[in-house]
């Protein structure tokens, strides 16, 4: 170790700082510098890979932890008080004792922190010592080292299933295509495989990679938090720049899958890696209750100060009244007596010390404890467990459980939240012709009926019989019968299983090819135009135009081994020649059944001879795919394939193409292999992928067709994004087809949307080589750019995506999750306004809203969609006026239909402007539900913020995708649904659930419980401390306001810390005012918690007043009983203390709603603890605690019958008013909660019976179930087929005496909404 001057050290540190702060970093390989001292290392300024997430160090733990803890104001307050004890003039009895409570609190918290930190330390150490392979120049190979030894500029080798130790720039993989598959589950929870590829053109894919040969300069941006963004280029020695982005970056924490090994260059290490930058601790939110609590603490402080002031003034006056110095007035040690004014002043502080426990010191600790247990119980709720994904409910925010009980507005995403986000291909339109896929529809209907029979409210019936399956005409597949998904259903049936057969059955996800379309395809196959046939192109586009990763379906995610079989087909020339020869040699016709295998009508033997692939094998696989028989052949291809898509729509489309035997076999960065129905495998060279972004609303893949060698651009996207880019209709050669394909397709699209399907348009464009060449130059430039890369890339994408030719459109269904309508209805009955904010088209959204009963048929639906602000303003005004008038009309009081608002994104943008937002909020709050369509993520969050701020309500946002993150963060409570779209929403959320239906129990039951428990506990805490402290206060009137406590100081501390602290905590954890079944059955009960809830100013002050009353009783009855007797100070305090204990505990027992064994144990245990501890203390302490010395006091008291008589009468008198109040309230004007508690005591069956009766009495209209059929789709030929008898089937099953009346009655109103609809 050479000595370096401090100046040099400082200079070096500054230089390092500067290097780290620079926007661009230049990194070179470490290898040439291996073994040199640190000062010579080129990358020495960048952080190493060792991580340290601990907050504390061993030596500095205590000061640092104290510093942390003193950020909490309450702790400072208590420490300040403890210090005040040591000021001599306040005459504390035992200043040291005053330190005990705060020390206990601080050390408990410190212990918790230390334990957490130690766990972090252990996990850090484990991570830092994880082995990894780092290249060493000396050894000329990859050596096993530890993660912490890794530095920026090193070369790391990762083998399959290993975790990436740092952010690596991928330079080499074992895969000949330079691809490495990674799983980012650790990072974002997405379990699908993602493809990463080596930086192109850097290292020739030698079988062995030579790190020493790498001599480029890696220029990358400053580390940032964005996981989906990375910019960098590699400057080769010859100054050529090669751009690289996220597609070449392996993030720390990812797992390498299906790739034998990969070598990367470390760009960011340790704390600078993206995953570490994203690794923020748990979110800290402050709940509404806690905010109110803090104001009440301030009230308590004011109360305390007032009491102290009274004490100080009283002491002053008392001293003033003394004529001379009495013998009991003790002068200072100097023999000098302070003036009354000064004594009064000092007395103020003495009083603060005496009465300090008015502010409950243990309150904060207790609240934390209660919340932890509440969270534990919530996460352990078996009803919130999802069997399918094996996931529990997760609580990310630890301190807002009680907010769940106060929600007034819910903002929900649609896709993936209300719906499954398991996309299923339903219909398509090709070249202006609709293919309704009736067979699919029929099958679904059969399933639906099986489902609808189940739909009886409040039923807990066992698993439905599987009749639906056997009825299924298509169910000829023995495999399906052989494995009925018992295991899947088992768990769900435990919950509120309402016909979820349809959702989880494999049938549901299967696409049965449309007969007509199959014929079309086979005709196309047979015809000579197979290279340009739009039908084939359509399915090719479905198969190609995506970013789906193909992998084996096996769980181990082992490397897929199909490549060797088809290695030769990589040569496009061979394929071309063979295909040209065999063109038209395949033809397929159909026999009757939809799923019967296609037969080859003619088969060219030469074709197979000329194919390079083993013909018998080929035949076999071909048969297999057509047959959809599973895994018979060892070399099985298509059925072993599993598609992992980032967006479920893409997967659905690929599966759809699969159903038509356009099988996506493999995807590498440079090629896509598709097997055609004819059995040939086409390998398309992928020239470029124009990824999806929400601005363009489309994505494209540019491929070179292996046969025609044309550059073909396949684009798919939202209809609005595509329709305006269309050129002339495609395929003019279609004979006699004069119809406008675009118009027809648009028409179909509209119908799809009305049906609730998600629509996508598929287009194709042939790009000439010349255009491509010039474009690709631009593209490369854009890719290498480090600034504005996104803009440039988007620009280039827009350049190419023009003059598209429409192939067709698809309709993908996204089924509602189970129990969504139920949940929404329940939430609404709970007084929660539900808003749905979706990016979908209004038609789709409205339809889904009817299906999930967000909108009811009898609703008055206001549809706001306007083009400019002027119209918007006038519409808003007139609607508002009408709604107001409508609500005020006395005739409508009982009959008012609920008003719903449908608004689209553009209009929303206008009404969110500052001058209109008040009116909008005014309108929206009169609406029962609001549906916003076509909204952007930013709009979602601004809607949430607007409502939250303007209406001052508790908001909850629930969503599952990245587009919901803004909204989730804006709301008071953000709930993420861990669904198909990764974990971004979950990561941003406070609570994560797996199904929307869980929201019902989470809010109605756990929210209610958490809120009432915590609210009651806090109120009780305030009461308890005020009641106890006031005893001391009243005594001051009889001791000259001198600050005497008649209770032993230790016992006072014990009283708060031990004797009376467990019962309220247990109360906060376990009290259950109403059973879960009742809360779920009668969601109206939730309303009690909304607004201010149980914890409001009134209840707070009532309990404070009650505390005053009780303390008066507890003091003055013993006072009168012991007046003018020979009782001494601390003997007088003993009955007071005992009375307080009984009063406080019995007060709690009035509040406790349910008594379990735990309650009894805790309550009796507290009393026992009091007597045992006090008796023991009184027996031992002879001179230990001057001046009280409680020796034998309690014993002598307990031998005195007066003690018991005083205790009994005082307790009774103290509690009598509260008792009477409760009785009167419960008997004369019982609150809904009390009534519910009465019902709760009935046996379950009669309770359910009652709930049912009450529900139907209250208006069956609310209970009515509506199915997807409700708004009939006007134009398509099929709706009747899809839901042949839907309304009747469901309606009959329910008791609908009132239902029919109401529906009929409301009908006119329903039609009326047409008038209100604004254009």
């Amino acid at each position, binding site marked *: 170790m050479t000595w370096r001057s401090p100046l040099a050290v400082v200079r070096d540190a500054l230089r390092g700082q500067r290097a780290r702060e620079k926007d661009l970093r230049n990194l070179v390989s470490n290898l040439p510098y291996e073994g040199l001292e640190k000062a010579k290392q080129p990358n020495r300024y960048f952080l190493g890979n060792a991580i340290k997430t601990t907050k504390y160090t061993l030596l500095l733990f205590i000061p640092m932890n104290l510093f942390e803890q003193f950020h909490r104001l309450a702790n400072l307050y208590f420490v300040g008080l403890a210090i005040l004890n040591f000021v001599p003039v306040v*005459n504390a009895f035992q200043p040291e004792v005053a330190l005990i409570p705060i020390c206990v609190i601080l050390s408990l918290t410190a212990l918790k922190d230390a334990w957490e930190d130690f766990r972090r330390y252990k996990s850090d150490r484990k991570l830092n010592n994880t082995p990894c392979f780092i290249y060493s120049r000396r050894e000329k190979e990859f050596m096993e080292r530890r993660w912490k030894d890794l530095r920026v500029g090193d070369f790391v080798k990762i083998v399959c299933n290993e975790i990436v130790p740092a952010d690596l720039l991928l330079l080499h993989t074992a895969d000949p295509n330079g691809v490495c598959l990674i799983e980012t589950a650790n990072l974002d929870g997405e379990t699908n495989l993602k493809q990463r590829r080596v930086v192109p053109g850097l290292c020739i894919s030698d079988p062995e990679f030579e790190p020493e040969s790498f001599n480029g300069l890696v220029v990358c941006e400053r580390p940032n938090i964005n996981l989906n963004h990375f910019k960098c280029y590699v400057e080769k020695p010859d100054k050529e720049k090669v751009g690289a982005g996220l597609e070449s970056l392996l993030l720390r924490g990812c797992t390498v899958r299906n790739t034998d090994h990969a070598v990367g260059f470390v760009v960011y290490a340790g704390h600078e890696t993206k995953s570490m930058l994203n690794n923020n601790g748990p979110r800290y939110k402050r709940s509404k209750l806690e905010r109110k609590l803090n104001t009440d603490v301030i009230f308590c402080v004011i109360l305390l100060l007032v009491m102290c002031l009274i004490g100080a003034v009283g002491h002053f006056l008392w001293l003033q009244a003394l004529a001379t110095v*009495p013998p*009991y*007035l*003790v002068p200072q*040690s100097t023999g000098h007596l302070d003036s009354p004014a000064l004594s009064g002043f000092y007395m103020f502080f003495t009083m603060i010390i005496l009465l300090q426990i008015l502010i409950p010191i243990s309150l904060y600790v207790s609240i934390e404890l209660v919340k932890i247990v509440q969270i534990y*119980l919530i996460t*352990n*709720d*078996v009803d919130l467990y999802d069997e399918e994904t094996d996931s529990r409910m997760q609580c990310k925010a630890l301190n807002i459980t009680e907010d769940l009980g106060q929600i007034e507005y819910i903002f929900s995403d649609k896709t993936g939240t209300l719906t499954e986000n398991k996309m299923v*291909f339903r219909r398509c339109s090709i070249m202006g012709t609709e293919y309704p896929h009736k067979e699919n529809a029929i099958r679904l209907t059969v399933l639906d009926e099986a489902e609808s029979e189940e739909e009886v409210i409040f039923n807990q019936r066992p698993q439905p019989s599987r009749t639906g399956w056997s009825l299924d005409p298509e169910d000829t597949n023995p495999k399906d019968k052989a*494995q009925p998904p018992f*295991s899947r259903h*088992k768990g769900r049936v435990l919950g509120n299983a309402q016909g979820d057969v349809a959702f989880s059955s494999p049938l549901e996800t*299967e696409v049965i090819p449309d007969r007509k379309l199959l014929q079309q395809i086979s005709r196309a196959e047979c015809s000579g135009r197979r290279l340009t046939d739009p039908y084939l192109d359509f399915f090719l586009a479905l198969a190609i135009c995506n970013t789906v990763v193909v992998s084996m*379906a*096996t*769980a181990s995610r082992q490397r897929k081994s199909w490549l060797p079989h088809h290695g030769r087909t990589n040569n496009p020339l061979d394929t071309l020649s063979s295909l040209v020869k065999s063109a038209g040699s395949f033809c397929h016709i159909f026999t009757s059944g939809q799923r019967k295998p296609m037969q080859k009508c003619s088969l060219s033997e030469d074709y197979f001879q000329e194919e390079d692939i083993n013909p018998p094998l080929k035949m076999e696989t071909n048969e297999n795919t057509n047959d*959809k028989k599973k895994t018979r052949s060892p070399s099985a291809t298509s059925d*072993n394939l*599993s598609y992992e898509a980032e967006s479920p729509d893409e997967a659905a489309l690929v*599966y759809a193409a699969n*159903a038509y035997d356009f099988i996506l076999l493999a995807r590498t960065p440079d090629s896509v292999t598709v097997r055609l129905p004819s059995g040939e495998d086409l390998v398309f060279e992928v020239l470029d992928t124009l990824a999806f972004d929400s601005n363009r609303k489309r994505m494209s893949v540019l491929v070179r067709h292996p046969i025609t060698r044309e550059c073909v651009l396949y684009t798919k996207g939202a209809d609005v994004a595509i329709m305006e880019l269309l050129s002339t209709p495609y395929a003019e050669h279609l004979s006699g087809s004069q119809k406008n394909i675009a118009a027809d397709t648009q028409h179909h699209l509209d119908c799809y949307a009305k049906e609730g399907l998600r629509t996508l348009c598929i287009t194709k464009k042939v790009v000439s080589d010349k255009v491509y060449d010039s474009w690709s130059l631009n593209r490369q430039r854009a890719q290498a750019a480090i600034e504005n890369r996104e803009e440039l890339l988007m620009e280039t994408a827009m350049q190419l995506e023009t003059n598209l030719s429409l192939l067709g459109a698809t309709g993908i269904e996204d089924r509602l999750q189970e129990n969504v309508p139920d949940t929404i209805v329940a939430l609404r009955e709970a007084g929660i306004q539900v808003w749905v904010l979706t990016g979908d088209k209004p038609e789709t959204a409205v339809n889904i809203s009817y299906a999930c009963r967000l909108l009811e048929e009898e609703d008055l639906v206001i549809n706001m969609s306007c083009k400019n602000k002027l119209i918007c303003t006038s519409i808003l005004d007139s609607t508002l006026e009408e709604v107001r008038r409508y609500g005020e009309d006395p005739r409508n009081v009982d009959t008012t239909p609920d008003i719903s608002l449908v608004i689209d994104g553009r209009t929303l943008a206008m009404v969110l402007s500052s001058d209109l937002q008040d009116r909008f909020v005014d309108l929206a709050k009169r609406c029962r539900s609001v549906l916003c369509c076509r909204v952007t993520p930013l709009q979602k969050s601004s809607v949430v913020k607007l409502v939250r701020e303007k209406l001052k309500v508790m908001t909850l946002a629930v969503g599952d995708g990245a587009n919901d993150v803004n909204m989730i963060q804006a709301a008071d409570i953000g709930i993420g649904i861990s669904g198909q779209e990764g974990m971004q929403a979950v990561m941003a959320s406070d609570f994560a659930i797996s199904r929307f239906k869980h929201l019902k129990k989470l809010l109605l039951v756990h929210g209610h*419980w958490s809120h009432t428990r915590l609210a009651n506990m806090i109120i009780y805490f305030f009461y308890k401390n005020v009641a106890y402290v006031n005893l001391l206060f009243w005594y001051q009137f*009889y001791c000259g306001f*001198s600050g*005497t406590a008649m209770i032993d100081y230790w016992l006072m501390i014990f009283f708060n810390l031990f004797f009376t602290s467990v019962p309220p905590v247990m109360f906060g954890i*376990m009290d259950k005012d109403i059973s*879960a079944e009742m809360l779920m059955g009668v969601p*109206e009960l939730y*309303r009690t918690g909304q607004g201010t809830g149980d914890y409001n100013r009134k209840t707070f002050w009532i309990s404070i007043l009650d505390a005053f009353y009780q303390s008066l009783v507890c003091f003055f*009855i013993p*006072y009168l009983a012991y007046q*003018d007797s*020979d*009782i*001494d*100070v601390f003997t007088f*305090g003993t009955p007071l203390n005992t009375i307080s204990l009984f009063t406080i505990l019995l007060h709690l027992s009035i509040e406790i709603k*349910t*008594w*379990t064994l735990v*309650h009894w144990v805790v309550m009796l245990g507290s009393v026992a603890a009091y007597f045992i501890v006090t008796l023991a203390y009184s027996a031992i302490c002879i001179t230990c605690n*001057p001046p009280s010395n409680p020796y034998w006091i309690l014993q*002598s008291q307990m031998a005195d019958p007066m003690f018991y008589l005083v205790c009994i*009468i005082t307790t*009774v008198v103290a509690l*009598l008013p509260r*008792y*009477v109040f*409760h009785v*009167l309230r*419960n*008997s004369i004007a*019982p609150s*809904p909660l*009390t009534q519910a*508690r009465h*019902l709760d005591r009935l046996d379950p069956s009669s309770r359910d019976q*009652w709930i049912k009766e009450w529900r139907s009495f209250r208006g069956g209209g609310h209970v009515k179930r509506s199915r997807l059929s409700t708004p009939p789709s006007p134009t398509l030929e099929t709706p009747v087929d899809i839901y042949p008898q839907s309304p009747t089937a469901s309606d009959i099953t329910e008791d609908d005496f009132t239902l029919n009346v109401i529906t009929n009655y409301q009908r006119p109103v329903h039609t009326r909404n047409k008038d209100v609809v604004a254009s």
Partner: protein
Amino acid sequence: MASSYNAKEEDGHVPGSAGHGGAAEAKSKKPDNTAFKQQRLPAWQPILTAGTVLPAFFVIGLIFIPIGIGLFVTSNNIKEFEIDYTGVNSDSPCYSCATNASWNNTTPCLCSLNFTLSQPFESNVYMYYGLSNFYQNHRRYVKSRDDSQLYGDPNALKSPSKECEPYRMSGAQPIAPCGAIANSLFNDTLELYHIEPNGTRNLIPLVKKGIAWWTDKHVKFRNPEGNDNLTVAFQGTTKPVNWRNPVYELDPSDPENNGFINEDFIVWMRTAALPTFRKLYRIIQKKSGPTPTLPSGNYVLNIAYNYPVTSFDGRKRMILSTISWMGGKNPFLGIAYITVGSICFFLGGGFKQAALNIWSVHGILGGVELSD
């Protein structure tokens, strides 16, 4: 199309495989279905309504009223006599003593009061002295003592606690017992004479043993050990400034009643809870035979008037009282029990009426109507 889903099923649940469920559940994150975790512990759910509370109120009423009557009667049976001998008024025999009383007087001022007991006092009679407006519970007064010293700790004897300031040291010598409480020890002496109808004065024997708590006398208070001779034991200490005699000469009549274990001293050291208090002074033992302890008639109370109370506007009383199981005379508790018992009784009745009304109107479930 279905390949992925079927495949998924095959992964986990191969039909007929023995591990169906078993192995999967072991790893499953599914929460335990226990009563505690699912918050379904069997529970008792009381609801406070008129119906359930009626019996409670009646029972309370029924129990309290007899207790109250019992207490009241007991309290009334206690005989108590109280006489104020402060000497505030100029016609009082102790007026001159009261005006001249001072801590520094070396000679006691004597005065005597005549009084008449209209009723005889049976059984043991307790003689108290009562002080009013004397704040023995003043914060700084209460702690102005050293219990270790009183416990006989030799170190504390030589170096009393700081709490005793400014009555800790007198010059260089520690004060024993130190502190303001000891310093202000009540030092009046009371003697009681019965004047028989023939005019003879009979000194009534006053017992000074057993007036302090047994535990105080035998455990909490101890003389410094090591020496039988208290004078030696207390050597090196000095008496409190207001005292006339050192602590080892408090009771010249009984050597066992000297030092810290002097019962008058112990009684005084147990600081009163309230500014008006009484302290047990002597016990008048019940005489054998039918004669009452204190027959009705005239009495004379001789007072050695030492304790000045005029400075704080205090009063001094002498109280004669018999006691019962409930202690001294105090009608409050009896009245309180009777009152509360009656209230509960009537509340019970009122609730019964209210409950009947509600029941008749709504029926048991009709009353349950959940408002929005």
